[in-house]
């Protein structure tokens, strides 16, 4: 696009972001403040992820953008179009073909590889934020690895409900040191983060934080010995591809209780459907 640098941001801004990313990779799970810029897309709509992607994107990269697991949700369409317009790079809907995947609220079902980077859009980077809103205070808690408050919260869940009632944005410990928000992915996706071969980068634009999980890093969902972490999914099979181990969306088909369940990862589902058809 004329009048703008490759991938919108100027090179000195990209360098500033890359430095924050390098620091984040060096201290897995630690939130690094960065000089988040005002982007031409609204705060809360992926400006952090967009800045991270813009900073790491090269002309040879192939970009996939998903929101809720789907390539065709409106905001994913908008962000993909933004990078096509400002960087002229190739985009794809195929998880296997992408070198960078920017995501909101999901991790793709297909296992990611070492030569791929997963960029998460993060609304609230602070996992302790709901328990302690003051950032000055949560920074201290992270510095002291003082996470008792979160354990108490999970314990209270168990005392009240018999199990941990957090179903998304489920807090994780990274590399045995930092408590981290996995972004609002369903808890079902948490285990995919553990020792993932791909680099995972997290960008929070409005809150001006970047954090990272380097490849093959331990990511453990918080739990107790007698109440181990249990990922939740709807106990059904996908109506379209028949999958019984993927995360499903519930789709209402009428107003009298009719519903079906389909894969939230549309690329994975389409691939399975194609395989099924080929086999038949």
């Amino acid at each position, binding site marked *: 696009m004329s009048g703008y640098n490759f991938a919108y941001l100027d090179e000195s801004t990209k360098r500033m972001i890359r430095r924050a990313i390098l620091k984040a990779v060096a201290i897995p799970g630690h939130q690094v403040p960065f000089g988040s810029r005002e982007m*031409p897309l609204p705060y809360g709509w992926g400006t952090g992820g967009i800045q991270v992607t813009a900073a790491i994107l090269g002309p040879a990269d192939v970009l996939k953008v998903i929101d809720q697991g789907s390539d*065709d949700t409106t905001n994913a369409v908008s962000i993909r179009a933004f990078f096509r317009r400002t960087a002229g790079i190739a985009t794809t809907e195929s998880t296997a073909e992408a070198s960078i995947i920017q995501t909101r609220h999901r991790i793709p079902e297909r296992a990611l590889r070492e030569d791929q980077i997963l960029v998460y859009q993060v609304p609230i980077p602070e996992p302790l934020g709901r328990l302690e809103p003051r*950032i*000055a205070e949560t920074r201290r808690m992270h510095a002291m690895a003082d996470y008792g408050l979160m354990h108490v919260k999970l314990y209270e869940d168990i005392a009240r409900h018999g199990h941990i009632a957090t179903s*998304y*944005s489920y807090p994780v410990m990274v590399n045995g040191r930092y408590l981290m928000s996995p972004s609002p992915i*369903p808890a079902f996706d948490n285990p995919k983060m553990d020792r993932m071969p791909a680099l995972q980068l997290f960008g929070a634009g409005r809150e001006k934080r970047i954090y990272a999980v380097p490849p093959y890093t331990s990511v453990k969902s918080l739990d107790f010995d007698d109440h181990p972490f249990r990922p939740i999914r709807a106990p059904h099979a996908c109506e379209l591809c028949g999958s019984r181990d993927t995360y499903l969306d519930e*789709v209402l088909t009428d107003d009298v209780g009719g519903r079906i369940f389909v894969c939230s990862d*549309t690329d994975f*589902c389409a691939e399975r459907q194609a395989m099924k058809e080929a086999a038949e």
Partner: protein
Amino acid sequence: MYVATKGGERAIGAAHAWLDETRRGDTSLPEITAAQLAEQLGLAVDRVMAEGSCHDRGLAALAVKQSKGDLIEAAFLLRAYRTTLPRFGASLPLDTDRMAIQRRISATYKDLPGGQVLGPTFDYTHRLLDFSLAAAGGPRSGPPEAEASAEATPRVTEMLAREGLMQREASIEAEPGDLTREPLSFPADRPLRLQALARGDEGFLLSLGYSTQRGYGGNHPFVGEIRMGEVAVEFTPPELGFAIDLGDITVTECQMVNQFKGSRTEPPQFTRGYGLVFGHGERKAMSMALVDRALRAPELGEASDSPAQQQEFVLSHCDNVEATGFVEHLKLPHYVDFQSELESVRTMRASVEKTS
């Protein structure tokens, strides 16, 4: 049979085309120009300039037009443009003492050097709809003209300070931080706080300022002075070593005079709440001055348990571009998380039914 939703790209394109059409409205009416907006909706344009933190009336007027008059959307457009501009340095501090005054009033003195200059104000107008404005009118009679006074207009707070009654501000030689380049960290110093307030939402600051008057962190404010007019922006390029004049901008400045009972180290005196905004924005400048003073509570050893006195609360929420983005992001799809909540609630209900 359900088919995965497709066609997002086409739908977005069509929605934006529809937006363009509604922006233009009835084509039998002449299209409004940005120049007309800058001239005739000047206060809206000033507000966009202030909250967009970019002093350019032409671009701010264009943003108002493009946003269909949604002023927060317009400030967002201007900010997104501003962020692409190179930053080549910090200007010298504006010297509002040398302002070409259009308006200057003090509530603390009946008369004072430089006088009370009302300027173009809504104050004392009777808020009666003027139906003569509904008809396209001919030229109206302008205000009577008079020679500008040659008398200097010294600042009220400075006169108090010379008497030792107004606390002097700490002089900071270092270039102030820039919260558009470096993330704000807490506690934030006063230059950064003022920066955040200067681009903060007028409505939010108005309500917070109002809350201090109603007892949530009050500090007995008096309007020492409000002045509005043009000031020169000066910049010292490193290669020259002396200041050059970049041009004049219109700003509104408010200095609130507040009581301070004194502490162990300081005698009783007045303290200052300071507001400065681009363009003519008196309500915003006054609100900013109230909130600035409220945020000084900890340094003055005052209790700080009211919302306006808590800097993390004020500074993290005063930016309307951040706020509108995050509030409005709730309309993005959240069905994945909602699904996990559905399953969680169903599980909880099942266990309740089992035990009852």
